[in-house]
């Protein structure tokens, strides 16, 4: 899979970063300034089958929180803090730097150790060591990037998480799972019929999705750990779609039409015991649980146009959430439950919006024509969504403050229906 990343980091941010380069690194937990960082090649890194620092550096740059400094012209790569020429890196305006070493062990595995340094203070912020087989270079690089990200921003990094999406190439549909940077993609489901509405289980072990392999939408759950056949969990008369997991992973909300119009049902994760929780007779679809599991946001046209509503997860009276415009759909809650992302039709264009649920303030995040299917990173920092460029489906990501954007595309194929996986253990 080819990746095309387009960065829109403003030069203003560059200057802001330079101006504070001599300051001590502060863990701000959410500042907009980019931290200037130098990721030096690790001593002995050429022993690895692929560069690990290149991946670390790309991860950090792509997050929008760091400005990666040019590290060329170094005569000797420092492996230890005693070998670092701090004066040189201060003059290069680095706030932080990463050094390390890599070596092949007698058993064929590799050992990678690295140190994260505070350049103005000339001190170590943290360090770690990994022993890994050749196949885990990328995974280890993402772990190192997550370590650095968390130490310097105070927030958990998402470089080690997974994303899932659907690739349509001709009449072939593939549900793929990839690293958060779009690399290392693995097909999980392949079909000659459409696949849509991917939803990760909260523990990251299962994927709910909708397949048309039986000539109509049917809801499946696929285990990602074992090579089991996907199991249909809802294949009632009519259409079965729009799966959403409860935060404890025990239940699914989904849309069934077995009793008439598209209504929301709750069922056990294996599809048993479905019980209806909306009774509008209008369209009720796209359920999404709040992180505490107490409420469900959903799309309904009960008021005459598709709008977003919220209701108790056990059923009950819905409250309308969106009021501006005549087409507001696809509600997704941020992991902290404070922000609602959704798609709004504005002058015929479909754009990604965010609403601060406390202040009800709304912000347009994108300027596309056909933006759809938003999904929050588990950190809440970025929103991945589907859009199109030159009539071809691509994925794009935008920081939840709208400042930073990038794209993921697959050559000669449509990419769509992204779903960002959860934080995994360790």
């Amino acid at each position, binding site marked *: 899979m080819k990746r095309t990343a387009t960065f829109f980091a403003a030069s203003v941010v560059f200057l802001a970063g330079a101006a504070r380069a001599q300051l001590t690194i502060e863990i701000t937990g959410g500042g907009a300034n980019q931290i200037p960082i130098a990721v030096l090649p690790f001593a002995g890194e050429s022993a690895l089958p692929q560069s690990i620092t290149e991946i670390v550096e790309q991860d950090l740059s792509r997050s929008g929180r760091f400005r990666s400094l040019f590290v060329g012209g170094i005569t000797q790569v420092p492996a230890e803090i005693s070998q670092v020429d701090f004066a040189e890196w201060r003059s290069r305006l680095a706030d932080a730097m990463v050094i390390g070493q890599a070596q092949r062990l007698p058993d064929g595995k590799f050992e990678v150790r690295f140190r994260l340094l505070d350049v103005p203070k000339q001190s170590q912020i943290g360090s770690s060591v990994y022993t890994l087989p050749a196949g885990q270079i990328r995974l280890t690089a993402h772990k190192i990037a997550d370590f650095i990200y968390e130490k310097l921003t105070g927030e958990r990094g998402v470089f080690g998480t997974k994303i899932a999406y659907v690739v349509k190439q*001709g*009449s072939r549909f593939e549900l793929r799972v990839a690293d958060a940077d779009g690399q290392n993609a693995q097909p999980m489901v392949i079909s*000659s*019929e*459409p696949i*849509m*509405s991917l939803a990760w289980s909260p523990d990251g072990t299962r994927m709910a999705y*909708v397949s*048309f392999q039986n*000539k*109509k*939408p049917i809801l499946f759950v696929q285990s990602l750990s074992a090579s089991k056949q996907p199991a249909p969990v809802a294949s009632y*008369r*009519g*259409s079965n*779609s*729009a799966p959403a997991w409860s935060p404890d992973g025990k239940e699914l909300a989904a*849309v069934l*039409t077995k009793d*008439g*119009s*598209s209504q929301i049902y709750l069922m056990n994760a294996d599809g048993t015991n479905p019980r209806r929780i909306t009774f509008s007779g209008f*369209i*009720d*679809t*796209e359920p999404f649980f709040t992180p505490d599991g107490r409420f469900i946001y959903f*799309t309904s046209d009960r008021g005459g146009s*598709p709008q977003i509503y919220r209701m108790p997860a056990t059923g009950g009276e819905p409250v309308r959430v969106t009021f501006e415009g005549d*087409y507001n*759909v*696809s509600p997704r809650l941020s992991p902290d439950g404070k922000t609602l992302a959704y*798609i709004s*039709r504005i002058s015929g264009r*479909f754009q990604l919006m965010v609403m601060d649920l406390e202040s009800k303030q709304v912000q347009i995040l994108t300027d596309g024509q*056909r933006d*759809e*299917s938003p999904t929050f990173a588990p950190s809440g920092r970025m929103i991945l969504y589907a859009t199109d460029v030159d*009539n071809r489906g691509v994925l794009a990501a935008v920081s939840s403050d709208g400042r930073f954007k990038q794209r993921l595309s697959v050559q000669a194929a449509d990419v769509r*229906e992204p779903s960002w996986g959860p934080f995994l253990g360790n």
Partner: protein
Amino acid sequence: MKKALLTALALALLYGCASQPVEPGVAPTPSPASPVTASPVQLQGNPLKDPNNVLSKRSVFYDYDKSDIKDEYRPMLQAHGKYLAEHRGTKMLVQGNCDERGSREYNIALGQRRAEGVKRMLVLMGATGSQVEAVSLGEEKPRCTEHNEGCWSQNRRGDMLYGGEY
């Protein structure tokens, strides 16, 4: 002209090979109907396949964001409802479709409402509810793949398929 187009489309559906304009170099997407395996209806003099019979017409077209059935489709739906009433063992699948604009899941629901509307009309005209299953294909199986109203109007559609045709 429209009549001829409808007939052609209906025939194409019958033979499990919906004609669809595709861009050069793009493989055609699978048709909504699978190859005909066992048809429960007689081939000889089959009214469902006779281009001069209204029963060969199978599609209802809609306005953007709408699911109400225009008056021009009533005679066709009446004929199908009557046929289903006279052939109680015959099943039908109604597939609702949408153009590509908007949420994929909302379009599943909108396509379902279109299909349910066709089903309701067929039941009014004599079919039983158990004979007809209404399903939605949303925007997932476009007959026409260009991004303009010419294509969108073809994709906002309800299709009726008899048992053996899907």
